[in-house]
Structure formats: C-alpha cells, structure tokens
C-alpha cells in the first residue's frame, strides 16, 4: 500500500472513529444515541450494575484465594529458611535477635521452647519475605 493510500485510509478511519467518539462523548450523548438504537438504557444500567457487582465479588474472591496461596508458599519458604538457620553450626539466637530487631518477641526467651522459637522465627520471616518487593505479586 502506498504511503498516500495509507494516509487516506488512516484519515478516513479517524473520521469513522470520531463518529463513535461523538456518540459516546458524554452520558447524555450516549443515552440519546442508545435511545435512537432502541436500547432501554435504564434496563441496560440496572442489569449492568448487577453484573459488575457480581464480577467484582468474583474478582475479590479470586484475589483473596491467590493471596492465601501466595502466603502459604511464602510460609513454606520461611520454614525452610528457619530450619536451615537453626541447623547451622554457627547459629546464634542472640545475634539473630539483634540483627533482625526481634528483642520484643524474645524478651522472655528463657521461657520459650525450641518449637516456640522456631514458630516465632517462621512468623517473622514469613512477614519479612511477604513484604519484599519480589513477593508482592505472589
């Protein structure tokens, strides 16, 4: 197609598009156009709003499910991380508490069992991993 033809076509399509733009230029213009097409706008809107509400609920449910799945996955990562950490020969709880600023969680460390310590660390690292930018889309 020659450049000239291409331009003529593009100008014509632009003109065609401007008719659709004009028919939907404002709510009033759109309503007038739809009425001329024999569309019952009130019915269109009331049924449309119901459809949108339903779609919003489904989308929210799907997002919640995805977030829960992502949280489970991050928790799995955190668990593996903590178990690895606790198994490390160089592991030092006081150092970790200081580095991760966990003094509040471990203020009664003498009363905590190994499982309690593990669970606190898993919770801490799960939250930490979830807040990492890389995990925002999980």
């Amino acid at each position, binding site marked *: *197609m020659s450049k*000239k*033809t291409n331009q*003529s*076509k*593009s*100008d*014509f*399509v*632009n*003109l*065609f*598009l*401007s*008719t*659709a*733009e*004009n*028919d*939907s*230029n*404002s*709510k009033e*213009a*759109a*309503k007038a*156009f*739809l009425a001329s*097409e024999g*569309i019952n*706008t009130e019915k*269109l*809107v009331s049924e*449309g*709003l119901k*459809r*949108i509400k339903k*779609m*919003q609920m489904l*989308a929210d449910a*799907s997002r919640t499910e995805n977030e829960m799945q992502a949280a489970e996955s991050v928790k799995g990562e955190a668990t593996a991380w903590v178990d690895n950490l606790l198994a490390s020969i160089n592991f030092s709880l006081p150092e970790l508490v200081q580095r991760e600023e966990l003094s509040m969680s471990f203020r009664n460390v003498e009363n905590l069992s190994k499982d309690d310590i593990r669970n606190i660390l898993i919770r801490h690292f799960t939250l930490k991993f979830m807040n990492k930018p890389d995990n925002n889309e999980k």
Partner: protein
Amino acid sequence: MSTDTGNQANIDWEEIIVRLTAFTRSWTRGKPWFRGEKTTTFLMGKEVEDYVFAAIGKYLEEPEKFDPDKGELLEYLKYNLVRSFVANDLRKKENNQTDDIFAGDNEEDEDEGSSSYSERVLPYTAALFPDDIDYSAIKKYIEKEVQGDADAENIFLGIYTYGMKRRDVIEEFTMTAVVFDNGMRRLTTVINRAAAHFNKNTQTV
C-alpha cells in the same frame, strides 16, 4: 469520572456502562462496511453488551494493568474492546481481510506501551478496513455531499484534514457544542451514505 486504578469505589459505573455501550454500538455499525452484512467474524455470535461487560470484567480482574497516566478508564476499556474485536476477526479462518496487527505483538509491545489508550484505538480499527478501497474517492464524495453545509464542512475539514478532536473543532471554528453535535450528526449520515456507496460487497462501485 474517576479513573483511579486503586479505588474502584469511586468509579461511576453507570456512566461507564452507558458511554462504553454507545461507543461500541456506534463503532460496530461500521462492521458491514466493505464486508457485507453477512460477515460472521467480529462479534462471534455474541451481543455487543457481552463484549462491553467482558472488557469491564477483565479490568476488575486485573485493575493494576490500567495506567491512569495513559488516559481515562473509559479509553482503556475502549482500547481493550477494539483489541478483542480485531483478535476475533483474525481468528476466523474465512477472514482474509484484516491486517494482522498482532504480528509480533505480545500482549502489549513497547511502541504501544508508550502511547495513550486513545491513540492505540486507531491502528486496531484501521486493521479492519481493507486497503484496496479508494479512500481518496470517498473523501471527494463526502466533500461534495457536505458542500453548502458550513458546519458539517468545517467539522469534516477539522477531523479529516487536521486530525482534530471534538473540542479542537469547537474551538477552532468557534461553534457551540450543540452546533457541533448537529453538524456531526449530518456528517455521520453522509459518511454512512459514502460507506454504502463504496461498499464493494454491495457492488455499488
């Protein structure tokens, strides 16, 4: 109308429904142009409203894909609608007229990503119009038909020759919105007549 991607509670859905449906119905009126009334591509047996709500549903599922810096939500929805129509047209085996605008296009290519949503609608719409039509002849036909109707002539000149939008035409030719709307209505009638006149499927040329 609010276009905040993060706060759907502020969206005027009533306005979106009405304006998007009007745009889509008006846009699809061009379907039989150059294709004939019996074309099976395009809507794939669904109603216009199904596409309108599918586009809204897609936004609700992935609101983060909408970038308010590239235009209003309505423009984003129009762009997605037009995209899906063109995609449908390409998928139909019997279609051999639509330009494959999706060739090398991966959801959103880089060039497209930098343009506004309203700018993106034009190339997708153009893909549905065949190349082997004498568009210069259509232009001459419309020019002749609007002769003597000053407002329609000015609107045609502004939009066709200078690529102006509604607001620009109103300002440039110092006309009121009502005068523009009436002139545009008459011009649309002429455009529809031109389309029928040059529609190769009705053998009028």
